[in-house]
């Protein structure tokens, strides 16, 4: 059963510390998305990649957040320095995009990383 995996599942850190979240997309998927979920804002798209290239990171605070895909099996989201307002659940999702309208367009979500910044 192919699934998106995320590590760690929970992270508690102190303000100012660096946080790195990792995601392994479903094998064969060529798009990866990072979302943040909070009570106030709901689900927000932070960034997404296609074929490992960043396509859109306009939802991400550039001064402290960075997202990368070192290879096709790993995506990372880093916060440096972290702040209490970054406390949220961060989801990674993957999908298979094509060039025709018959691509699946379905995104499959990982279990999320619950981040608490004290």
């Amino acid at each position, binding site marked *: 059963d192919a699934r998106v995996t995320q590590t760690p599942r929970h992270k508690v850190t102190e303000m100012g510390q660096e946080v790195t979240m990792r995601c392994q997309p479903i094998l064969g998927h060529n*798009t990866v*998305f990072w979302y943040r979920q909070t009570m106030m804002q*709901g*689900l927000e*798209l932070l960034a*997404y990649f*296609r074929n490992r290239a960043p*396509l*859109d990171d306009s939802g991400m605070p550039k001064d402290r957040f960075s997202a990368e895909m070192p290879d096709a099996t790993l995506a990372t989201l880093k916060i440096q320095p972290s702040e209490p307002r970054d406390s949220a*659940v961060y*989801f990674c*999702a993957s*999908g298979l*995009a*094509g*060039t*025709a*309208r018959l*691509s699946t*367009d*379905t*995104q*499959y*979500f990982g*279990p*999320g990383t*619950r981040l608490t910044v004290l």
Partner: protein
Amino acid sequence: AQTVTQSQPEMSVQEAETVTLSCTYDTSENNYYLFWYKQPPSRQMILVIRQEAYKQQNATENRFSVNFQKAAKSFSLKISDSQLGDTAMYFCAVTTNSGGSNYKLTFGKGTLLTVNP
């Protein structure tokens, strides 16, 4: 810009009964996809059902079906024979695939559904 509106923050239903969750959206695209995701207390986001905008036939997955009204930009979810395990937050979402280059998924704020025994 796309927007998704779920006008019912909370709903409840008795076990075995039918419930309908509403969703309206706005998009300027002609080719797009609509989704319902379910988020139980475990927080896992689970795909419930998917609808391609170019298909007139409403999608169905077992007890879950949609009423897709393209002209009205409405996409409601019907759950038949509700089960206790259906208790969750339900999110409506829309994405576009303009030649495979625009792939953003926009979510509504969600509807919390409680199934009562």
